């Protein structure tokens, strides 16, 4: 147990350092504070325009879509806060940054992930919280204890799935020395597949996004269940539990891939 406590203490120090580093130039936050909310509020506003001028998308009204969009954004925001180092695995490999981490008597994956607590990422959570609260109100979300618990578990599961996928994709750099563009592609994919109903896409794509890359569990299937829609995927357990299990499996696989990759790590050339 003392080991776990030690890790928490270290995480606390790392986070404090990272926050101090990021607050060194407080005005620097301004451009992010202008851009991120603009981008996401514009995204949801465009969905509103499409629904208003056309029709609900595959039976999803604007409020339903906003609920899905908000739920997706919540786990996205948390991943940006906690897992952003995975986006930079390529440069960490190229610059030989793992040398430093390998020399310390702590788990390398832990050091890598917690090495940069992305305080600025909290900005991504602002539109997520606003849109989700609006949509939850609009669809009459029941704020009972059980629903809140389900919501929290769903978000944790979503963060684990996203974090796991980013870890695996980033770790490709251990083998190929490149994963920057691959990460960019994954970010684009995750954005478009967690914020819109999966049923918009062809059946093949839905199958891939459920079994091969379990992206559907991040927000789509849980949103269906919260909104009381007919489930597109039948599970023997509650969808909340399903999301958590998928998340844990994703993270476990990601950890193994990362460990395998680290064995291929050969430090910087020059």
């Amino acid at each position, binding site marked *: 147990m003392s080991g776990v406590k030690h890790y928490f203490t270290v995480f606390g120090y790392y986070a404090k350092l990272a926050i101090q580093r990021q607050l060194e130039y407080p005005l620097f936050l301004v451009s992010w504070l*202008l*851009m991120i909310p603009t981008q996401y509020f514009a995204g949801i506003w465009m969905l509103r325009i*499409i629904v208003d*001028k*056309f029709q609900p998308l595959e039976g999803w009204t604007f409020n339903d879509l906003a609920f899905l969009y908000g739920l997706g954004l919540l786990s996205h925001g948390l991943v940006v806060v906690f897992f952003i180092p995975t986006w930079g695995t390529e440069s960490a490999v190229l610059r030989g940054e793992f040398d430093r981490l390998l020399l310390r008597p702590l788990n390398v994956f832990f050091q890598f992930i917690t090495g940069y607590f992305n305080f600025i990422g909290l900005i991504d959570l602002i539109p997520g919280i606003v849109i989700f609260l609006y949509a939850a109100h609009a669809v009459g979300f029941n704020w009972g204890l059980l629903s809140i618990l389900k919501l929290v578990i769903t978000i944790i599961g979503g963060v684990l799935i996203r974090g796991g996928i980013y870890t695996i994709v980033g770790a490709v750099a251990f083998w190929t020395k490149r994963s920057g563009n691959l990460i960019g592609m994954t970010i684009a994919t995750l954005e478009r597949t967690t914020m819109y109903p999966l049923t*918009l896409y062809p059946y093949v794509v839905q199958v891939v996004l459920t079994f091969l890359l379990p992206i559907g569990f991040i927000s789509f299937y849980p949103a269906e269940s919260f909104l009381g829609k007919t489930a597109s995927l039948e599970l023997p357990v509650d969808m909340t539990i399903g999301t958590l299990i998928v998340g844990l499996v994703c993270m476990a696989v990601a950890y193994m891939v990362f460990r395998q990759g680290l064995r291929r790590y050969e430090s910087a050339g020059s």
Partner: protein
Amino acid sequence: MRAYGYLMKMRMLTALAYRFDVWIGMIGDIILLAASVFIWKAAYGGDILGSGASVIGLNGMITYTVVSTLMASVFSTGVQDTIYHQVRDGNIALDFMRPLNLLAIYLSEDLGNIVSSVMNKAIPLVLVATLLFGFPMPDSTIAAVLFIISCILSFLILWLMSAMVGLVAFWVSELGNLGMVKDAFVRILSGSLIPLWLFPEWLQQVSAWLPFQYTYQLPLSVYIGLMKPEAALRGMGVQLIWIVLLGGLLSWIWSRARGKVMVQGG
């Protein structure tokens, strides 16, 4: 012998990894494109069509989306990042010592990027988009020609705006990269994602007085034939007016920015 074999293998893998990387970047564009197309398909689906469908049909909308993605993948306005980084790192002082017009240097760099993007991104994107959704046909040959001319003017407007935002770094580099903020606004107000004719009336009226819709929506409307040649020529006239206005503004800011560097002593 083994050593030479190893070198050969490594060289081959590096080259392959690079090509693979270029393709991956393109797949990202395809995913964004496909997501938009499927949203339009759902919006136009079924028998009941909303008021939004009255302007153009589904096929026109898909062509609009595909060509818009192509334009975005080709238009390179690295100038805003370049100026921002050069100012932040202080390298701009060295750049000023080059015996060439600095803005012209940045413009030529971006033009070079465009040519390589046409080969590396646009052509593969067209091929894949054609396989998935059919070839995005222009309304007529004249429409295609006017589209290309209008695109050149569009790029100039985008480039001038980027250069201007980049220059802001001379005064407020601690505000971070405002170029990203500008990009977010351009994406929305240019009609690159959703055509402006679907926007609320008041916003359409406001944007008629802004340069944004002349960057994407105008050439795209020409391409799909929503704007007939006479209207297209009038639109290109407006594009020219914007280029003159923005160009004038840019050279004014530029002369002020140069003075700023002298004051800082580089």
